[in-house]
């Protein structure tokens, strides 16, 4: 039994992450401050803070919590830790300055700076930490939550139990604040006043304890109904809990009161001496984190043949898909062509975009036929001037999304194989006759999907130091040299911004003689909000916000995310069938086509016009709605991308075992496993919503930055951004609605 009790820990990852973050920030800041002011930021303070956090963990995740609903005494110990142990220990660490110093400089200065300088917040903080307020807060929380009605509410509801614990902890932080006098706040009462402050709190504690100890009946009914462990009656349990509250609780109040009394009698000055904290040197010169400099992984990625190897693997898979698609059974769940592209590849590709960058283009299997075409065919012509834009690729993207719905590509291995063959042929012919990477830049719809969505990725191929490039005269990154070609998409690294048109081919990395190009971390979406402001267009792509073709691509991909997912949910499928029946059509083709074109072309056009016109009026600026539609189209990219990720990762998670039937079939297992879809994990809807939350916040932020660049005046910027923010919220609401509907598992046997 003892073992069972001792192993009853929860290890809630949310709490662990939160506490680890709090510890990390404190330790980071404390190390700096300890060097500057070793007398104030002593190891004792560090130890107190960390023990305080550990106490919080014990209170919330240990067996105390597991047994809290069976034993009042366990619950009482938990409350004592939350009220009387963890908060004073944390405050003894004097945490304000170390935590602020532990934050990344940018967050501290740009993020928290305006709040820290806000007089209203300081005033509020001063009122909140007034000893009278602090004492009342603690007493109110303590008494209120021990009243039977509210105590029972907390026992019977995990949500209210959490609220109760939060009330205890934060009220206790307030209570101990003036006692410990957290620096840099200033004392609002004389120090000796803390003695009656503590004694009065102890009187309340004593009264409540006595009520529990001397009560003639069980105060909290749940403990009367709960099974008794080890033969202890509910009354005995209650008396023990009261004694725990009374004796150790009183000691926690009275010992500091005694120490303060001694200090007052001895005339000890407790006012801390002023401490000057030296400013920390700027870290702006520190090189950004670079994937190519990660031990083990970096050298592999940089290896000259790395890309060829991964491309060969994907090429082999593509060939296998084509063969199986043409010659295998035309049942999607049993065919490689029905499973690999539609369940796995799409899911992994968007997750790679979210977590890294355009890794699919890095491993693109079409690269090898492109190279073959260049060897076998002349490859001397320049791509026609009239086609040097994204319009062709955008049209192909619309065509592909339409064909996906109309021809049910996910359920047709034969069609899937033909698409891949068509892709290989096009790549071979285009790059066989035209110079550069014309196929990637102007034709490939998959590439455009990745180029645009990689603008939200956290990694970017870019220069490590601009100073190195300033003295460069050869520009090998774009021109190439005797041993290595330069960027085929004409992206000049020193002026490149964002991942648009970047295939992560690493040609520039290999070509740079000074090893000045890496895969660096960047702020997701930063190139989107910096683009309208940049006076100098980004190399190779110009200014995105001035390009109608790129903006059209953005609109198509944002609304494509909605249409692609909406076409799989039951209500939308029901409406389409109803419309089809009402019109008396024999085929779904006309209805699907009309609804698809309305959703992916007409709706964005109409909404762009409406928002652009409204923004011109509300923002009181001159110009055309088209210009605004171009600029603000990119603000919606994060939202559209989050919908693609939420949708494709859903299919990947549900169907992660869908390769098994294909595997069984190929190995000639007599009865291939068919129903292998996994139930949706309980956390998946929350994770999908969090993805969309992130997309919405980033989209509105980019829209705001775009608006601020258009006009310096606050009210006009607000007017300018409002229609786009409303549109973003509308897209978010539509995405949520789609995710909440039952979704078809296309290409899978359910």
């Amino acid at each position, binding site marked *: 039994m003892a073992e*069972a009790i001792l192993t*009853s820990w929860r290890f809630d990852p949310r709490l662990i*992450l939160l506490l680890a973050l709090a510890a990390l920030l404190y330790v980071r800041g404390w190390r700096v401050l300890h060097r500057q002011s070793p007398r104030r930021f002593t190891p004792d303070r560090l130890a107190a803070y960390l023990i305080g956090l550990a106490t919080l963990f014990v209170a919330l995740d240990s067996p105390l919590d597991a047994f809290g609903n069976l034993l009042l005494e366990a619950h009482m110990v938990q409350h004592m830790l939350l009220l009387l142990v963890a908060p004073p220990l944390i405050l003894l660490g004097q945490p304000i300055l170390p935590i602020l110093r532990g934050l990344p400089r*940018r967050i501290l200065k740009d993020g928290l700076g305006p709040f820290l300088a806000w007089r209203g917040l300081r005033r509020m903080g001063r009122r909140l930490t007034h000893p009278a307020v602090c004492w009342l807060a603690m007493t109110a929380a303590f008494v209120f939550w021990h009243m039977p009605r509210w105590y029972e509410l907390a026992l019977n*509801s995990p949500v209210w139990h959490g609220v109760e614990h939060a009330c205890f902890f934060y009220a206790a932080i307030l209570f101990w604040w003036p006692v410990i006098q957290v620096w840099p706040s200033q004392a609002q009462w004389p120090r000796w006043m803390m003695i009656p402050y503590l004694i009065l709190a102890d009187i309340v504690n004593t009264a409540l304890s006595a009520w529990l100890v001397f009560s003639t009946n069980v105060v909290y009914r749940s403990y009367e109904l709960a*099974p008794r462990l080890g033969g202890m009656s509910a009354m005995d349990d209650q008396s023990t809990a009261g004694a725990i509250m009374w004796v150790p609780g009183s000691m926690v109040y009275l010992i500091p009161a005694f120490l303060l009394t001694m200090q007052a009698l001895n005339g000890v000055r407790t006012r801390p001496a002023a401490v000057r904290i030296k400013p920390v040197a700027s870290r702006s010169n520190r090189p950004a984190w670079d994937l190519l400099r990660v031990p083990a992984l970096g050298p592999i990625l940089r290896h000259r043949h790395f890309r060829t190897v991964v491309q060969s693997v994907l090429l082999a898979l593509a060939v296998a898909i084509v063969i199986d698609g043409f010659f295998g059974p035309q049942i999607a769940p049993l065919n490689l062509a029905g499973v690999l592209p539609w369940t796995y590849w799409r899911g992994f590709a968007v997750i790679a975009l979210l977590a890294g960058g355009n890794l699919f283009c890095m491993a693109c299997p079409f690269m090898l036929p492109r190279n073959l075409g260049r060897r076998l065919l002349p490859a001397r012509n320049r791509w026609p001037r009239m086609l040097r834009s994204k319009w062709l690729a955008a049209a192909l993207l619309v065509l592909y999304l339409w064909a996906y719905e109309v021809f049910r590509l996910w359920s047709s291995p034969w069609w899937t194989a033909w698409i891949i063959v068509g892709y290989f042929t096009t790549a071979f012919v285009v790059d066989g006759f035209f110079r550069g990477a014309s196929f990637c830049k102007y034709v490939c719809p998959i590439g455009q999907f990745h180029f645009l969505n990689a603008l939200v990725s956290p990694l970017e191929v870019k220069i490590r130091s601009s100073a190195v490039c300033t003295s460069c005269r050869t520009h090998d990154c774009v021109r190439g040299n005797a041993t290595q070609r330069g960027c085929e998409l004409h992206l000049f690294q020193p002026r490149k911004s964002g991942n648009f048109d970047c295939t992560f081919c690493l040609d520039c990395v290999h070509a740079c003689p000074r090893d000045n190009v890496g895969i660096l971390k960047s702020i*997701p979406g930063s190139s989107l909000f910096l683009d309208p402001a940049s006076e100098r267009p980004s190399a190779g792509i110009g200014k995105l916000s001035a390009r109608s073709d790129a903006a059209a691509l953005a609109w198509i991909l944002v609304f494509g995310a909605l249409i692609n997912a909406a076409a799989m949910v039951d209500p939308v499928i029901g409406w389409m069938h109803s419309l089809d029946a009402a019109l008396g059509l024999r085929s779904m083709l006309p209805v699907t086509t009309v609804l698809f074109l309305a959703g992916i072309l007409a709706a964005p056009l109409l909404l762009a016009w409406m928002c652009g016109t409204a923004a011109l009026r509300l923002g009181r600026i001159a110009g055309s709605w088209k210009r605004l539609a171009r600029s603000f189209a990119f603000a919606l990219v994060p939202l559209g991308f989050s919908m693609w990720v939420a949708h494709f990762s859903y299919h990947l998670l549900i169907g992660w075992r869908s390769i098994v039937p294909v595997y069984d079939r190929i190995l000639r297992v007599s009865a291939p496993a068919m129903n292998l879809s996994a139930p949706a994990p*309980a956390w998946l809807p*929350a994770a999908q919503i969090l993805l969309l939350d992130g997309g919405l916040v980033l989209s509105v932020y980019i829209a705001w930055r775009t608006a601020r660049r258009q006009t310096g005046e606050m009210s006009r910027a607000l007017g300018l951004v409002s229609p786009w923010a409303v549109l973003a919220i509308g897209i978010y609401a539509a995405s949520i609605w789609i995710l909440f509907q039952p979704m078809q598992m296309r290409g899978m046997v359910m």
Partner: protein
Amino acid sequence: MRRLPGWLLLAASARLLADGGLVLLHQQSPPFVITVFESPTPPRSGPIDLSVLVQASETLEPVLDADVQIELTRDGSQIQARATHDQTQNKLLYAASVDLDDPGAWRYTVSVQAADRALKPIAVSGDLAVAPEQPKLAAYGSYLALPFFCLAIFALHQWLRWRQREIPQTSPPR
């Protein structure tokens, strides 16, 4: 800040173990005393945790090596699950998570078989009223409110920045 999505995703994936919940039934069935807990409260269609505490009726010591089976029936549909210590935070309990898609009155039966299998299994039964599933908007309300909360903080941040830039220009010279 850049790590935030990762943190949030991990936070969302937290698997909360059953920790008892509300007492549904407490019954002496020698040689055991069996207590059944249900969570969430009230139970709603969807995943429901049923936890069982088995005690020796003479000593009230928890019995930790029993075989506990839970069966739920309603209108011909039947769900069976084996309750184990792995699915609960409180390792004195046995718990099982069952998916009850249909709201309404379910009948549950908990069978407890002693480890030595010397006696016949002891079974206790009761009714479980399952409420309809919580509307998704309410179930995920906090997640849906999150971006608007973030945007409100950001709006305040921008207003403060603007005000802090404006005030020095408008304040009278000293």
